[in-house]
């Protein structure tokens, strides 16, 4: 397996285009073919193929022992994964919706994250918990959250939030290879997005941000689906003569602070955008980190954050959309920063 980052824009001509969901499935299948210790457990991941079809076809190839359909028991599924990881397996949990992490939080935060440390370095927990997050599907308040800030706050966990199919593949393979518990977010609206994804095995190291667009006037740090909104905003702003740099951290923990700081030193303005509720979201961490860094002296404008309004996600599609940052909001924030009102 080639262990270096692949720049997905390199091979636009030759490479296949597959969806984000397919890229996730390919990463899982490749890892499972290579390593007998890798297996998946979760609700309805067998013939049903998982709530979003990600594991479709996998039970046919790998059988029910390695594609383990579970009861609806999020705490036990997660705990069983941790226990199996602690004893040598490399489990991948599929948690049907990331909102249900609420039920598995004790196992994640108090067990997976802490066992190694509490035991003085004996044992580790090489597991991955993959889970679909985000709004935009009309699933309402209990099926639309972005709770990545919770896990990012817990020492001992790593947190990944890919925005493209090729990133998803490379990062998931790195996550499975990682000897620590990794929470891997898959935004529901990204599943059907297509991208060029090399067929061969590759990993993208955790902790390496990607500059999705180079620019000079303002930096936008965006995650998951917001990367695409930021890129769209950047296209439009280019027409107004504003040259935007878009940075996708890809992993929240570890966070590639240097790439962000370097960009801000270059542009002097920065906007942090995520879909999670702004209040207490991880944007606060990123924004504060920038302010505390050497980039502070280069700032021509305050660090601005965009995130969801402080409301549960409503069902009505118009209201639902209005809760999270849109392209226009990003454009306006960028203009405000550049023109420093």
């Amino acid at each position, binding site marked *: 397996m080639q262990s270096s980052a692949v720049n997905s824009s390199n091979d636009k001509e030759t490479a296949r285009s597959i969806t984000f969901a397919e890229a996730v499935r390919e990463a899982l299948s490749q890892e499972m073919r290579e390593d007998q210790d890798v297996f998946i457990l979760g*609700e*309805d991941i*067998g*013939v*049903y193929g998982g*709530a979003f079809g990600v594991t479709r076809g996998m039970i046919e190839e790998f059988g029910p022992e390695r594609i383990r*359909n*579970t*009861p*609806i*028991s*999020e*705490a*036990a599924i997660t705990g069983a994964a941790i226990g199996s990881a602690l004893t040598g397996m490399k489990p991948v949990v599929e948690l*049907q919706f990331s*909102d*249900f992490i609420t*039920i598995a939080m004790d196992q994640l935060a108090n067990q997976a994250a802490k066992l190694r440390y509490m035991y003085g370095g004996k044992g580790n927990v090489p597991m991955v918990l993959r889970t679909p997050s985000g709004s935009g*599907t*009309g*699933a*309402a*308040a*209990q*099926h639309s959250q972005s709770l990545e800030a919770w896990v990012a706050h817990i020492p001992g966990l790593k947190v990944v939030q890919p925005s493209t199919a090729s990133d998803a593949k490379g990062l998931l393979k790195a996550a499975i290879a990682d000897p620590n518990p990794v929470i891997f977010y898959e935004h529901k609206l990204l599943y059907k997005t297509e991208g060029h994804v090399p067929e061969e095995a590759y990993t993208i190291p955790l902790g390496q941000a990607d500059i999705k667009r180079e620019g000079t006037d303002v930096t936008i740090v965006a995650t998951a689906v917001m990367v695409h909104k930021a890129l769209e905003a950047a296209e439009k702003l280019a027409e107004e003569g504003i040259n935007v740099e878009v940075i996708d951290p890809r992993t929240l923990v570890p966070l590639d602070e240097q790439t962000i700081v370097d960009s801000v030193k270059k542009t002097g303005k920065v906007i942090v955008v995520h879909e999670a509720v702004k209040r207490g979201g991880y944007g606060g961490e990123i924004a504060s980190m920038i302010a505390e860094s050497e980039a502070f002296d280069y700032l021509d404008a305050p660090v601005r954050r965009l995130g969801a*309004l*402080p*409301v*549960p996600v*409503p*069902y*009505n*599609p*118009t*209201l639902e959309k*209005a*809760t999270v940052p849109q392209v226009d909001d990003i454009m306006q924030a960028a203009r405000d920063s550049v023109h420093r009102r």
Partner: protein
Amino acid sequence: MTQADWIWKEPKEKLVDWLEQMWTVRWFDEKVDEFFAKGMIHGTTHLCVGQEASAVGVCAMLEGKDKITSTHRGHGHCIAKGADPDRMMAELFGRETGYCKGKGGSMHIADVEKGNLGANGIVGGGIPLAVGAALTSKMRQEGYITVCFFGDGAANEGSFHEAVNLAAIWDLPVIFVCENNQYGMSGPVKDMVKIENIADRASGYGIPGHVVDGNSLPEVMTVMKEAVEYTRNGHGPVLIEAKTYRWKGHSKSDAKKYRTREEEKEWKDKDPIRFFQDALIERGIITQEEAETVKKETKAQIERSVEFAEQSPEPSEDTLLEDVYA
């Protein structure tokens, strides 16, 4: 069946009302199915076609003051507890006139006035809430009981275990009704528990458990009647398992690969509505024509609900920030 024979002595209006309710549930969900297939409704939904007897049979044994907590598959419970299908349909359309002003959708319809404390998008999430509602009744001596609906899949959540135990030790007036429709989303109950009946778990909490044919309205009612009496008299909770089947897929897109067409057919042959309707006709309580009328009128009513929903306004964006805090 003999035990359930009391039901046929009930006044005709009641019997017809129950038949109407089951049809209303059926038509409501058939309509919703149609709209989702056409992509006319946003989000997702979970239909209870085939399970009408448990929703209607259970709620029919309750009084107005009694409460229920419902599930993601909750349209039947909601209608049976007295909700207005117009406002339900409006909610599915995301309209201002809906039960949740368009903020909840199918998975969160609540009708607090009628005692429906709400559907729940979290499997097992409503079980502790029901226990809390029962606690209020006991502490304030309000005399109401609470029915907690949940699925076979939910019976494997920790919340089920904790909540039933709590209700048991505090002798709370709550009836746990497990609608065992044989599957979670796709997980067959026979693979997800190693026992024959989920009702058998009752003994682990020291409360009575009953299994009932969930497709037989008379049998559901008979078991419920007894449970209501027991619970209302302060003896504590009861666990009832109603064996039934959902005819449709789990939610809007489901290839149903996890079950056979034969199995589906077997269960459709046990249609709870036809079963009850035929019994009414057979016993001479209603005529074939009367039955046809009920069927048609309930269908027409749902058409009117659709009209109501379609003509209702969208919620204003100004309401977005409302009702987060009281």
